[in-house]
Structure formats: C-alpha cells, structure tokens
C-alpha cells in the first residue's frame, strides 16, 4: 500500500473555494444552474448601471485635482469607515453562519488533518469572499474616479481588497471573542443583531450628527463641515494612510495590504485551532429553552390558534427581530430632525411618513414570507379541517397585527403632531403592507422557516416588486402628507407595479 498523499493548504483552499462558489451560484440562480448565464448577464448589467449613480456622486468631487488637502482626507476616510462597517457587518453574518452550520464538520473533524490547517483555510476562504465583495461593491465609484481623475485612483481597488481582508479578520476575532465571553447560544443572537446594526449604524450615525450640527438630512453637510476638518489630526498623521492609499500613494497602499495580510494570518493562526471545537459546541447545542412560566393550556378558534402560533413564532425568531430592529433604526434620523424642528415640523413629518411606510412595506413582506411560505408543518395545517382560504386569512391577520404592534405607536406619535400626516402614514402603511403581502401570496413557494435569509433567491421579481411597491406607496403617502395631488401619480405607479407583478406571478392569491 502506498503512503497517503500529503494534503496541502492549496488543495484544501481549492476545495473550499469550489464549495463557496457553488453555494454562491445556488443563491444567484435559486438552484437552477441553467439560469447562471442569465443571472451573470443581469449582474453585469446592474453593475454597469450602478456606474450612473456613482458618476452623479463623484461629479461633485474634483477627482483630477493633485492637491491633497485635509478636507479630502477627511471625506475619503469617513467613506472608508462607512464602507468598512458595511463589510464588517457582512463578514460577521458570514462567520456566524459558518460557526453555526454543521455541514461537513463531522467529516473534517474526524479526518487526520489538524484543526489549524482545516480552519485556517476556512477563515481564508471567508476572507477571500468578503474581499471579492469589497472589490465588486467599490467598482462603480473607483471606475468613475479613474475615468475622471486618472489611473492613480485604481489604487482604491487595493484599498478595497485590504479593507475586505481586515473586515473579515476583525469579524472572526469579534465573533469568536463573543463566543468565549457569552457562550454559544447568546453569541448567535448577539452576533446577528450586531451585524445587522453595524451595517446600518454608521450611515444613520452620520445623519444624526449632521442633523445635530446643521438640521438637515445631508451626510455631506457633516463630512464637509469646517469644524470636523479643523478637529481632524494633521495631514501627516498615519491615520490618513488609508485615504492616501486611495489617492494612489504607493507606500501607504503597500503598508495597508501588508497589514491586512498580517491581520488575516494572525487571526487564522490564533483562532483556527479552536474554530472547529467552537463550531461543534455551537451545533451540538442541546438548545433547551424552557418557558419561564408553566404553560396554561387554552385552545382558541382555528383562526385565533393560527394567529397566536404565528405571533409566538415571530417573537421567538432572533434573526427577524434583528432585521426589524435595523429597519426601525432608519427612523432615528428623521425623528431626530423632527425633535429639533418641532416648531417647523412639516418637512420632517413628511420624511417620517415616507420612512414609516417604506419600513412597514418591507417588514410586512418579510413577515408574510415567514408566515405564508415558511410554514414548518404544512402537511399538518393542510390536513386540518380548516379551509385553505381561512388559514391564509389568519396568517395575513397575524402579519398585519405584528405591523400594527411594531409601527402603530410611531403613527400615534405622528398623530400627536399632525393627525392629517398620521392618517396619510396609516393609509400608506396599510396599502404598502397589503401590497407586499399580496406579492408574497402570488409568489409563495413552500420553504423551511430557517431559509429566511435566502428568501430573495426564490423570486427576484417578487423582491424587486416588494421594494418598488413599498417605495411607491411611501412616495404617495409622503406627497399626500405634503398636501400635493402628485401623490395620486405615485399611488397609480404602485398599482401599476402591483398589476405587472400579478401578471408575471405564478399563481393567484387565495384571498
């Protein structure tokens, strides 16, 4: 018998990359590999299209200027921090998913390979995908900057790469650190919520500071403020190296790349030996969650039983709670603007109405997917002596009830300032929620509740339809709150979008 072949780092890396690529491919094509070509063309088209808004943003910036002043460094640095927070959020989400999915753990942990080798490959693969995402997301802005300001801007790709690697390394360190401090069960929810909040927090934070400083919703107002520039360190400070790297300076760029690679190596070396054990501990969780109080057994009518069941499940879904919290965070800036301008609240109230309706529509779509498509005992429900229409109605009522509980107090808050605006918000909210629920009914496909994260892959049309119809109703409600009849056009747009989505949908709704 010949001696066993040595398993190299490269061989393992190729294996991991192949698995990750196929996973990504499945997400892109909803499992139908024949759609890959079309999906890639659409992706490239959208990527090309994104160069237009990127051009609009970059046009306000003198990319060709050779002078590097402190204001430019501040602007670029803040954009980088914003970008890193986004990447960190994605990387934490990815690490948490890896940590809590059993997958091939039993196989790899029982193989004669060391944990360090196995899991350092996994950490590197994860970092490679985050870096790839960093490059893809930065492409429109970097391309336009290079087009307008010359090839030196292409160095920003190097910064994006380093940023991706650093974010991935930080995500591993933070998540596994949480694991050690909080234990497996708490880490899952804390990491998911943290990832969601980090993703939104910086953008919202900048708006909040801008509002506090100037009373407007513009992020640029804060970024370009004299106070901010004056308070920033001197232009020679190493803090500006990332910004200087973006501007094409070789030494900072090289340093940043070296730092990123070193951070990744350090994280892999430090955490890989324990990643396997931590993953096993996480997936082996006995998950004994005992209700605090003994259950009082009380049956209800079939519709009420269905609503109570749905509300219980929604309340106990940590991922959903984190998603809902993140969406509600977007209400903070307009609310703050409102608080600062109570005497002249009309404009701010319009913004609040728009955000409320958008959030309500999106939240209703997510909840409707969970209750309608994500039914975990579909056969039991279908064999119950309850008409299918009655089951669907009860589920829709559960979603609408949850929306009322989550956003009703905010609408009431608006009503205290302006009953008319609250009415516009309530009507817009109801229409947006009903529209996204209806789209979910048209596009329903049975799935496991735990596949919530992948719900968008089952139908891109449903996803875009939900977003567009929410925005249209939000526009209509906002315009109605502003007292203009143009609201009717936005409402008509929402109805047209709904009609188009209905025509291309695979089935009619039951209700």
């Amino acid at each position: 018998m010949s001696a066993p072949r040595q398993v190299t780092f490269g061989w393992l890396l190729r294996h991991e990359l192949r698995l990750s690529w196929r996973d990504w491919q499945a997400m892109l094509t909803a499992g139908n590999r024949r759609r890959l070509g079309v999906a890639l063309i659409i992706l490239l088209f959208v990527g090309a299209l994104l160069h237009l808004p990127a051009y609009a943003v970059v046009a306000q910036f003198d990319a060709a200027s050779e002078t590097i002043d402190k204001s430019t460094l501040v602007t670029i640095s803040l954009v980088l921090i914003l970008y890193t927070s986004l990447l960190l959020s994605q990387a934490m989400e990815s690490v948490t998913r890896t940590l809590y999915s059993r997958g091939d753990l039993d196989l790899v942990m029982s193989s004669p390979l060391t944990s360090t080798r196995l899991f350092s490959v996994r950490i590197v693969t994860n970092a490679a995908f985050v870096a790839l995402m960093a490059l893809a997301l930065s492409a429109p802005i970097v391309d336009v900057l290079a087009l307008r300001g010359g090839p030196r801007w292409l160095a920003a790709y190097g910064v994006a790469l380093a940023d991706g690697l650093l974010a991935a390394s930080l995500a591993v360190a933070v998540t596994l650190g949480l694991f050690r401090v909080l234990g497996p069960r708490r880490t899952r929810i804390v990491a998911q919520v943290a990832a969601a909040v980090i993703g939104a927090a910086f953008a919202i934070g900048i708006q909040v500071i801008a509002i506090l400083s100037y009373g407007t919703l513009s992020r640029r107002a804060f970024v370009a403020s004299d106070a901010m520039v004056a308070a920033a360190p001197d232009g020679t400070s190493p803090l500006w190296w990332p910004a200087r790297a973006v501007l094409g300076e070789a030494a900072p760029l090289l340093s940043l790349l070296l730092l990123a690679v070193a951070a990744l190596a350090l994280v892999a070396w430090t955490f890989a030996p324990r990643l396997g054990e931590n993953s096993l501990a996480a997936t082996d969780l006995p998950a004994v969650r005992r209700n605090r109080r003994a259950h009082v057994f009380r049956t209800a009518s079939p519709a009420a039983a269905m609503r109570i069941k749905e509300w219980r499940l929604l309340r106990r879904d940590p991922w959903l709670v984190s998603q809902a919290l993140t969406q509600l965070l977007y209400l903070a800036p307009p609310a703050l603007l409102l608080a600062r301008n109570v005497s002249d609240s009309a404009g701010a109230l319009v913004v609040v109405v728009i955000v409320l309706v958008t959030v309500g529509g999106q939240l209703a779509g997510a909840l409707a997917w969970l209750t309608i498509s994500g039914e975990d005992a579909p056969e039991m429900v279908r064999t119950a002596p309850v008409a299918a229409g009655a089951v669907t109605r009860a589920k829709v009522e559960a979603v609408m009830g949850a929306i009322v509980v989550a956003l009703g107090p905010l609408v009431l808050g608006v009503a205290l300032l302006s009953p008319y605006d609250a009415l516009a918000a309530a009507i817009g909210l109801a229409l947006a929620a009903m529209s996204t629920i209806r789209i979910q009914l048209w596009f329903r496909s049975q799935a496991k509740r735990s596949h919530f994260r992948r719900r968008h892959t089952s139908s891109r049309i449903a996803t875009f339809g939900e977003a567009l119809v929410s925005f249209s109703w939000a526009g209509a409600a906002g315009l109605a709150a502003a007292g203009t009849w143009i609201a009717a056009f936005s409402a008509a747009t929402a109805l047209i979008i709904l009609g188009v989505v209905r025509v291309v949908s695979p089935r009619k709704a039951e209700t």
Partner: protein
Amino acid sequence: MNAASSALQIRGLAKTFERPAVDNLDLTVRAGEFYALLGPNGAGKTTTLRMVVGLLRPDAGSINVFGIDALADPIAAKRLMAWVSDEPMIYDKLTPMEYLEFVAGLWGVESATAARAANELIDWLGLRPHADERCEGFSRGMRQKVALAGALVHDPRLIILDEPLTGLDAGTARQVKDVLQARVRAGGTVIMTTHILEVAERMAERIGVLTNGRLVAEGTLAELRLRAGRGTSLEDVFLTLVGDIAAA
C-alpha cells in the same frame, strides 16, 4: 360492506404523475381495525394516503371516510382523520404543549377536553420532562412523539401514518406502537404503511400489498400465507407476492 360502516372506502382511485402512481385502486378498511399497507418503493402507498387526507387531488375515483365523501366535503372528512408522515413536521420554536394547543385549536377541540387529552398524551409518550421546552433541541424520536401526540390530541376516528417508525430507536418505536394499539383497542382505526414487515406482522389485523399502484393482495397474515403458498414469515409471503407481480 357499505361506505358508512367502513372507516375508509376507496373506489377507482387514480393518480398519474409521469407514470401512473395509483391505478384504479379499490380499498376498504373496516372501522376499528389496524390495517397495514405494504409494498415496494414507488408502489403508490404514500400517494394513496396523501389523497385520502387531502394533500393530493386524485385524477379519478372516490374516497369515503366513515361515509363522508372526502372529495366533496373535505373539511368534514378531515375532522375525523389525523395524518402522521415519516418526517415529523413540528415547530422548532414551540413547546410540545404549545404545539398540542395549536393543533387542538385547528380541530376546534374544546379547551378542557384538549388539555386533558394533551396531558394524557404527554405522560403516555414520556414527554412530561420536556413539555415546556422548545422542540428545537429534540431528537428525531422525540419530534416524532410530539407529531404523534398532535395527531391524537383531537381524538381522530381514523389515524393514517406513513412510515412512522423510520429512524426511531427501539424504545421510542415501542412507545409509538403501544399508543397505536391502545387506540385500536379503544375503537379507533389505524392505517399504516411500513417497510418493517415484523411490525405489520405483529400489529396489523389485515394487510394490503400494493404494487404499481394496484392492490395485489389483501387479508390476514394467514390468508396471505395461504395465497402465497409458501413461506412462513410475512417477509417470505411479501417477496413471493411482489415477485410474482414483477415476473408477470
């Protein structure tokens, strides 16, 4: 036997997917009996039972449950039935008690009756220590016991089970079998598909053998032995009957 005196009466039932899965099937199950439906993979057992409980619409034929036309009045028929599949489908984030409360609500069982039945089932199936724990950490056997408790909490007259013992350990399988036998002793009717022939041999009063969507043999074990003409165990009889059909 007329439709009203039988628990289940199927006539001319047919369902075709890419090929006929159920082919002009006639089947009668008496009230109060334990009936085992056997057959090789793809014989049409699950498709037949899914049509009976209303999960699939047949292409042709009739289904009567205790005299109720299940195709014309599915809600009335469903009120009398319970379905347990091989894959226990329960809610991870609910406790067994909450699950039973939900099922009892769907079947419109009055609160006190449902609570009594739920507590009895929880004790009977050995779920008491876990009654207020969420099902997410349960083993397959425990999940199947919760699903079975859900099927029984509304006191169905006809219980239909598709491979309910798949993947269960010996202790859990024994508990499930005991519960089903007790149900039959109390006057209930059980129809069960299984690949474990020993279970059918020991538990079923009558056995039906399905192949290519058709009932090729039916009777007590003694009757089937007589018909097969050789062998002493149900396995011998089953292989003879199925083998004869395959050869024909």
